[in-house]
C-alpha cells in the first residue's frame, strides 16, 4: 500500500474518532438556549421541557434583585419584554451580576413556575459599550447629583424596556 494512502487512512481514523466523539458529546451536553417567551411557548407545546435543563438568556428586571447576604443565593426576575420568569439561583454570585444586566441562567423550570438555576453568567455591560447611541441609565443619578441636566435626547434604553434589544 502506498504511504500516502496509509496516511490518509490513518487520518480518516483520527478524524473519524474525533467526529464520533463530537457527535456523541453534543447529544450529551446540548442544552436549549431560549428567551423567556420561547420558554413559555415550549412549556405549552411540550410540558416535558420542565424535566430537562435549559438555558435562558434575558435581562434582569430593574429592582427585582433580592440578594441573600451569604452571597450564595439570589432571587430576581428576568424578562425579554414579552415574558417574565422569577429565577432562584443558588451558588456563588459572579461579580458581574447586578441589576438590569443581561444574564444567562441554566437550570430547570419548577412546577411552581420559578426557574431554579444552577449556573448564572452575567455579562458586564460596562466592559464593552452597548449600542453606540445607548445611554447608561446609571449615569443619570450622577448627573443629577452634579446639578446637571441629564441629556434631553434620552433614548428608551431604560432597563424596563429591553424588548428593543432581545438578548440572544
Amino acid at each position, binding site marked *: 500500500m502506498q*504511504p*500516502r494512502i496509509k*496516511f490518509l487512512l*490513518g487520518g480518516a481514523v*483520527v*478524524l473519524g474518532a*474525533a467526529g464520533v*466523539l*463530537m457527535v*456523541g*458529546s*453534543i447529544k*450529551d*451536553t*446540548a*442544552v*436549549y*438556549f*431560549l428567551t423567556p417567551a*420561547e420558554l413559555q411557548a415550549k412549556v405549552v407545546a411540550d410540558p416535558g421541557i420542565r424535566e430537562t435543563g435549559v*438555558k435562558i438568556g434575558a435581562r434582569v428586571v430593574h429592582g427585582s434583585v433580592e440578594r*441573600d*447576604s*451569604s*452571597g*450564595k443565593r439570589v432571587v430576581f426576575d428576568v424578562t425579554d419584554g414579552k415574558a417574565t420568569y422569577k429565577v432562584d439561583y443558588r451558588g*456563588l*454570585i*459572579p*461579580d*458581574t451580576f*447586578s441589576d438590569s444586566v*443581561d444574564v444567562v441562567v441554566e437550570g430547570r423550570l419548577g412546577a411552581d413556575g420559578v426557574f431554579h438555576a444552577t449556573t448564572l*453568567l*452575567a*455579562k*458586564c*455591560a*460596562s*466592559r*464593552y*459599550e*452597548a*449600542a*453606540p447611541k*445607548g445611554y447608561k441609565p*446609571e*449615569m443619570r*443619578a*450622577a*448627573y443629577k*447629583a*452634579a446639578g*446637571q*441636566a441629564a*441629556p*434631553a*435626547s434620552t433614548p428608551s434604553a431604560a432597563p424596563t424596556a429591553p424588548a428593543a*434589544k432581545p438578548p*440572544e
Partner: protein
Amino acid sequence: MILVGELPLWIALLMCAWSVTLSYAGGAMRRADLIASGERGLYAGFGFIVLASAGLWTALITSDFSLRYVASFTSANLPFVYRISAFWGGQAGSMLFWCLILAGYSALATWTNRRSVRELMPWVTGTSALVLLFFVATTALASNPFERLEWVPADGRGLNPQLQNPAMAIHPPMLYLGYVATAIPFAFAIAALVTRRLDAEWLGAVRRWALVSWVFLTLGIVLGMWWAYVELGWGGYWMWDPVENASLLPWLTGTAFLHSIMIQEKRGMLRKWNVTLVVATFMLSVLGTFITRSGVIQSVHSFAQSAVGNWFAAFMILALAATVWLVSVRLKDLESQAQLEAMISREAAFLYNNLVLVGIAFSVLWGTLFPIISEAVRGSKITVGESFFNSVNVPLGLLLLALTGIGPLIAWRRASVGNIQRQFAAPAALGLITGAALFVLGIHKLYPLMTWTLSAFVTGTILQEFHKGVGARRKMYGENPVVALGRLVARNRRRYGGYVVHAGIVMLFAAFAGMAFKLEYDITLADGESYSAKDPYGRQWTFTNEGLSEFKALNREVTAIALRPTIDGKALPLITSEKRQHFDSRGNPTFQPSTEVGILVRNDMDVYVVLAGVVRNKAEIRVNFNPLVVWVWHGGVIMALGGLIVMWPQSEKRRKQGGYVAALAPAAEVATA
C-alpha cells in the same frame, strides 16, 4: 484636543486608500515610482494613526469627559496606569488600538522586506494597506472613540474593577499584538499567489511574522487564563467560553503552520496546505475579534450587540472569497514537489501533528458556533457545554502530546528500526516507569495517568536531545557543559528553541491534568472558628477565621477576611479574600461589588479562597484545592521564552553552519542506509 485625534484618523483613511491603489497599480504595471508612492502612503498612514492614538491617550490622561469614550471608561480618581490601559478597555478604543498595531506592523514589514523580496512587496504593501483600510474605516465610521457627548459630565463612570488588574492592563495588548500579526503572513500569501512566486522564498519572511504572532498569542492566552483565575473567582482558568476559544483558534492553526512550514522548506510538500493555514489563521483572528465585538455568541466576557459586527462579517466574506478565487486559479503552481515516502517518518509525524491541531481547531470552532449553526438548521438555539470540548479535545490533546515527543526525533523520509530504537528506547522507558509508579501510588484516573506518562516520555526525548548535543560539543570542542549548552542553543536556535517550547507545552499538559483532582469546600465560619478539610494529596488542612475587617482604601470600601491555614498541624501564612465596593471621586458607588480572591500558591497546589458574603457576622467562604496550577503559568512563560529563542535573529551563514540543516543529514543517511 479632540480634533488632533480625530482629524488624523480621517487622513489615515485616505492614506490607506492611496497606498492600496498605488501599490496594486505599481505591482501590476511594474512601475517603481508608483510602488514607492504606495509605500510612502502606508508610512504616512501609520504616522497619522500614531497621532490619532496620541490624541486619545491625551484625552484619557487629562480626563476630557466631553468624549463619550473617556467618560465611559475612566473617572477622575482612576490610577494613572489604568487611564493608559483604558485605551483598550472599551470597543472604540480597542478598534483604534487594532489599527495602531496593524499600521505599525505593516510599515515594519514593508520597510524590512522592501529590498529582499522586491517582486512581492507591492502586493504585500497593498494588501496590508487594504486590511488597514478596513479597520480604519470601521473605527472612523462605526466605532469612533472621538465621538463627543452633548454635555460634559462632571466625572466619568470609571473603569470596571475587574479590569483594574495588572494582568488586564497587558493581556489585551498581547492578544491584539498576536491577532494582528497574522495579517502580515496573510498579505504575503496573497502576494505570493498573485505573483506566482510560491516557492519557499515567501515563507522566509512569513515565518518570522508567524512566530511574532505565535509568541504574543501564547502570552496573551496565558495572561487571560491568569486574569480569569485570579479575578473571576470561579476557581479555574479555562471554561471554554467563546471569547477564550476565539483566542485559541488562531493559536492552533498558527502552531500547525509553524510545523508544516518545515516540511515545505525541507521537502517542497504541503504548499496548498501552507497557504490555507496562513489564510485560515488570519481569518480566525478576524473571527475572534468579530466574536468578541459583535455579540453573536453569548459569553461571560460579553458586550451588547454593536454595528461593528456587520462590518466584520462583510470583511470576512470578501476576504475569504478573494482568497478562494486566487487559490483556485493558482492550483497548478501549488503542486507538491515530493511525495510522502513512508508512514514511519518525520513527514508523517508532522502531518499527523497538523491533522490533530486542525482537528482540535475545528471541534472548538464547531462547539463555539454551534448555537448559530443549530439555529440556522433547526430553528432553535442549542449550546454545548464544557464537557463537549473536554471529551473531544482531551484525547486529541493526548495524541498531540505523544507526537510532540515523536516528531522531532524520528528520521525524515523513512525511519529505520535502528533510528527508532536509538531515539526512543530511553524516553519510552522513562514514560512507562513514571506511569507505573503513579499507578502504584494510587492514580487510577485514565486521562491524567496517560498525560503524565506521555509527559515523562516527551521530557525524556527533550533531555536526551540536549544531553546528546552538549555531549557532542564537549567532545568536539572540549567546552565545559554550561558553555556547551549555551552555544548549542545559540547556534541551533530553531531546533533547541523548539525543544524549549515543547518543554513548556509538556508542563502545561501536566498541569492541566492536575485539575482532574481539584476539590471544593463551602464553609461558614464565625470569628475564631475553624474548619478542617482533606486536600487531594490526602493531607489534613484546617482553616481558622482570624477575623473579618472593614476598611477604606484609595477608591474603594473593603470587607476582608483573614484565614489561618495549617497543613498537618503546621501553620502557614494568612490567606485573605476581599469584597470591594468601588466609588467615584464624589463618593457615589460605582459598579457592583467585586471579589478579590485569596490564593496561597504552592508548587503542589493552590489553595484558592473566595469570600462569598457575610451573614450575621459569619463569613461564607469557598475553598478550592487546585493541584499544579502554578505550572500552567511557568509553562506559559517557558513556551514564550522558547518562541523568543527561535525568533531571535541569526545570520544566514551561521544558521547553515551550526544548525538545523546540518543536524538532519546524519539521520537521513541512517534512514536510507
